[in-house]
C-alpha cells in the first residue's frame, strides 16, 4: 500500500481488509492519531455533557483559527514564527478598546476614552490593525531566515507583551479591560454559550475557507516553493519578499480575528493572556498537529484543548498544577515528535 496516502484513504483500505489496521507502518500513525484524538474528543464530550461540549467547541474554534493561520506561515512558507501571540493580542485589544463601555476614572487618574462600538464593527478593524502592524513588522523581518527569524519573532512577542502591559493610556495596563461587548446583530445578542460557539465556528469556517483558497491556489504553490528553496523561487521570477510579506499579513489578520473572538468570549482581557509562553504553546500545537496541512492544525488544536480540559479531571493531579502539568506533557510530546516524527502527526513537511 502506498505509504504517502492520507489517513482517510487508508481507512477505506482497512475497511476492505481489517488486517491492515494492525500493520503499524509509518503511514498508519496518521490514521491512529486521527482516530484516537477524535474518539477521545467524542468520549470526553459525551461524559461531560452538552454545556461543557459547547464551551469546549468555542475554545477549540479560537485555538484552531490561531493554529491554522500560524500554519500558513510556519508550515507552508517555512518561517518559524514564535511571535503570533502579538497579533492575537492586537486583535483582542482592538476589539476590547473599541467595544468596552466601562470607564475607569476611579482606578486611574487619566480618563481613558471609551468608544462603545458594536462587536461586528470592531472585528474587521481588529483584523486591519493586526494586518497593518504585520505589514510594518514584516517589512523589517523579511530578510531574516531560520534561527535568526525565530529570535526576532521572540522579540516581537516580548515587545508586544510589553506594549500591552505598559501603554496604559490605551490598554489600562495590568488592570485589563472589562466588559468587552458580546457579538450583536440588531437586538439579537449572542451571549449564551451556544450562540458564542456559533460565532466561533462561523469565524473558523471563514478562516478555513481563506486558508484553503490560499493553499490550493497558485499563490500557495509559490509559498511552498519558497519554503523548499527561496533562491530557486527567486530565480523563477517570483518576488519572494512580496509573497512572504503577503502571507505574513494575511496570517496576522486571521490571528487578529481570533483575538477579537477571544476577547469577546472572555469579556475580560489582561496582558497575562498574551505572554510568550502562550505563543510557544501555539507553535507547539501547530507542530504537533502537522505542518502544511489545515486538517493537521485542526487536529492539533483539538488535541491541545482536550489535553488542557481533560487534565483538569485527572483525580491524582492537584488543581493548581494542571497548567504546569499540561506544559510538561506538551513539552515532552514535542520532544518525542521531533525525534521520531518531525512533520507532526499528520504533517506534510519537515522543518
Amino acid at each position, binding site marked *: 500500500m502506498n505509504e504517502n496516502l492520507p489517513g482517510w484513504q487508508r481507512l477505506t483500505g482497512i475497511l476492505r481488509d481489517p488486517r491492515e489496521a494492525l500493520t503499524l507502518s509509518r503511514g498508519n500513525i496518521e490514521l491512529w492519531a486521527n482516530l484516537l484524538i477524535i474518539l477521545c474528543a467524542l468520549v470526553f464530550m459525551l461524559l461531560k455533557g452538552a454545556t461543557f461540549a459547547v464551551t469546549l467547541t468555542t475554545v477549540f474554534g479560537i485555538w484552531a483559527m490561531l493554529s491554522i493561520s500560524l500554519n500558513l506561515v510556519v508550515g507552508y512558507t517555512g518561517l*518559524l514564527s514564535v511571535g503570533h501571540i502579538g497579533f492575537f493580542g492586537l486583535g483582542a485589544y482592538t476589539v476590547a478598546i473599541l467595544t468596552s463601555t466601562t470607564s475607569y476614572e476611579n482606578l486611574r487618574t487619566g480618563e481613558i476614552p471609551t468608544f462603545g462600538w458594536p462587536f461586528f464593527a470592531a472585528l474587521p478593524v481588529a483584523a486591519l490593525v493586526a494586518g497593518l502592524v504585520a505589514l510594518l513588522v514584516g517589512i*523589517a523581518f523579511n*530578510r*531574516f*531566515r*531560520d*534561527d*535568526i527569524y*525565530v*529570535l*526576532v519573532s*521572540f*522579540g*516581537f512577542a*516580548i*515587545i508586544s507583551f*510589553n*506594549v500591552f*502591559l*505598559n501603554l496604559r493610556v490605551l490598554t489600562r495596563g495590568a488592570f485589563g479591560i472589562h466588559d468587552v461587548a458580546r457579538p450583536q446583530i440588531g437586538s439579537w445578542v449572542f451571549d449564551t454559550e451556544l450562540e458564542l460557539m456559533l460565532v466561533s465556528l462561523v469565524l473558523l469556517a471563514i478562516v478555513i475557507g481563506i486558508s484553503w483558497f490560499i493553499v490550493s491556489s497558485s499563490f500557495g504553490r509559490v509559498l511552498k516553493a519558497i519554503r523548499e528553496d527561496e533562491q530557486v523561487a527567486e530565480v523563477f521570477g517570483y518576488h519572494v519578499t512580496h509573497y512572504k510579506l503577503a502571507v505574513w499579513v494575511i496570517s496576522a489578520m486571521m490571528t487578529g480575528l481570533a483575538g477579537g473572538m477571544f476577547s469577546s468570549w472572555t469579556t475580560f482581557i489582561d496582558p497575562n493572556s498574551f505572554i*510568550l*509562553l502562550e505563543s*510557544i*504553546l501555539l*507553535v*507547539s500545537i501547530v*507542530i504537533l498537529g502537522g505542518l502544511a496541512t489545515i486538517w493537521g492544525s485542526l487536529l492539533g488544536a483539538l488535541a491541545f484543548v482536550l489535553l488542557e480540559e481533560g487534565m483538569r479531571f485527572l483525580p491524582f493531579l492537584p488543581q493548581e*498544577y494542571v*497548567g*504546569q*502539568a*499540561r*506544559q*510538561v506533557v*506538551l*513539552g*515532552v*510530546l*514535542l*520532544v518525542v515528535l*521531533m*525525534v521520531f516524527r*518531525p512533520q507532526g502527526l499528520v504533517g506534510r513537511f*519537515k*522543518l
Partner: protein
Amino acid sequence: MLSYFSRTERLIATLLVAIVLIYIGWRAISSPEQAMQFGFNGLSVGAIYALMAIGFTLVYSTVWFFDLYYGAAAALGAYSVFYLRSQEWLGGQYQVNTPVVNIILAMVVAGVAAWVIHTAFYGRFKERVDATALRIVGGALAMAIGIYTGLVLTFPSYLHITFGPVAAVAIGVAALWGIKYLYDRVSGGRGPRAGLLIAILSGGALAITLGLILVNSPGSKLYLSWAVSCLLAGTVGLALYRGLYVRMRQRSRSPLIMLVASLGILLALTACISIVFQSAPRPLPDPFGSVPWTIGGANIKGFNFFAIGTAIAGFLALFSVLKWTSFGRAVRAIGDDEEVARVVGINTTVIVAIVFFVGTAFAAMAGILSGHDTAIQPRMGLLLLLKGWIASVVGGIGNLYGAILGGFVLGLIEQFAIWDLAGEWKDVVAFGLLILFLSFWPQGLLPRK
C-alpha cells in the same frame, strides 16, 4: 547573511546611533553622578548578559543550532541554589527539599556518570581487562557517584563537609594539570620528571589546605552551592545532549527541528520548576551584604563588582583554554567543519559533550548571578537566554570577544535607555537594538573571522 540596505541607509542609521550616543554623553556630562550609577548598573547587568553570551557563543559556534535548554539551565542553576540554601534562608518555613527531586537528580547524575566513564575508559581498557569486570566496576562507580549526589542534595546544611573536600580536590587536580602544562611548555616536554613531582606536590598541598579551610568554614556553603548548581545544570545539559541531541544529529535533523525539540525541553523544564517551587518570584539574598559603597556619588554594591569580575574571569578562563590547549583547537575545528574534524581523528561526540557541559555551566552561573541581583522565577531562563543571544548578535555571532563586548554594551544601553524612558521598556529597547543590529550591521561589532 547580507544586509539589504544600501550604503546611504547604513550611513543614516550610523548617524542616528551617533546622535543617540552624543545625547547620552551630554546627559552623562550634565549629571555625572547619575551617569556613574547607571553605568555601574549597566556593567553589572551586562556582566550577567556577557556570561550568558559567552557560554551561548561557545555552544552555538560549535554545533550551530540554537539550544533553548541553555535558557532553562540558567533557571535550573538559580533554583538549585535556592533548593540548597532555602532551609537556612527561610528557617524551615518552606520545606522544599523533597526526596523525589533528590532521587531524580541523583539518577540523572548517575546515568551521565555512567556514560562519561564508559566513553572515557571502556575503549581504553577493554583490550587489557575483562569486559564484564570493567562494566561492573564502571557501573558501581557511577552508582557511587549517584548515591553521593543524593547525599549532598539531601543534607544541604552540611554542604561544606560533604562537598568541600571534593571541590578542593577538583581545584587541586586542576592546579596540577595547569602546572604540568606550563612545565611541559617551558621545558619543551623534555624536562626531568622532578617537574611532575613538584606539580603533584603543590596540587596536593593546595587541595589539602583548601579542603581543610572549606570543611571548617560553614560560610563557604553559599559558594559551594553555586558550584553544585553549575555542575547540576551542566549534568542535565549533558544528559540531554546524550539522550536527545546525539540521537537527532545521527538522524541528521535540521537545526530548526533541534530548536523545536529544545523548545519542548524548555517548556517541560520550566513547568517542572514551577511545580516544585511554585511560580511566584523568590529573592536570593545578597551574598555580600546590601550596604552599598559610595563611589563618585554612585551607590555601588559589592555584588556588582563580583558580577563583573565573574564575567571577566569566565571569559579569560574560557579564552585561554580555547586558545592554548588541544581541546580548544578541537572545539574550533568542530565549529569550522564537523565532518572534517571527525575525519582527522577528533572524537567529536566527547568534545561537543564537554562544550555542552561547560556552556550550560556558564548559563547556570549567569542565572545564579541574576537571581542574587534581582529575584528568581521559573520563567527567567528564556528572557536571559534571549538577552544572551542578543548580546552575541550585537557583538558578532560566534566570536568570544564579541560575546563579552556585546553583553556589556547591551547592559549599558538598557540602563541608559531607562534613564529617560520608564524602566518597563528595557526589554523593548533590547529587542529594538537587536532588530537594528540585524538590519544594518548583521555582522555585529566584531565579526567572526
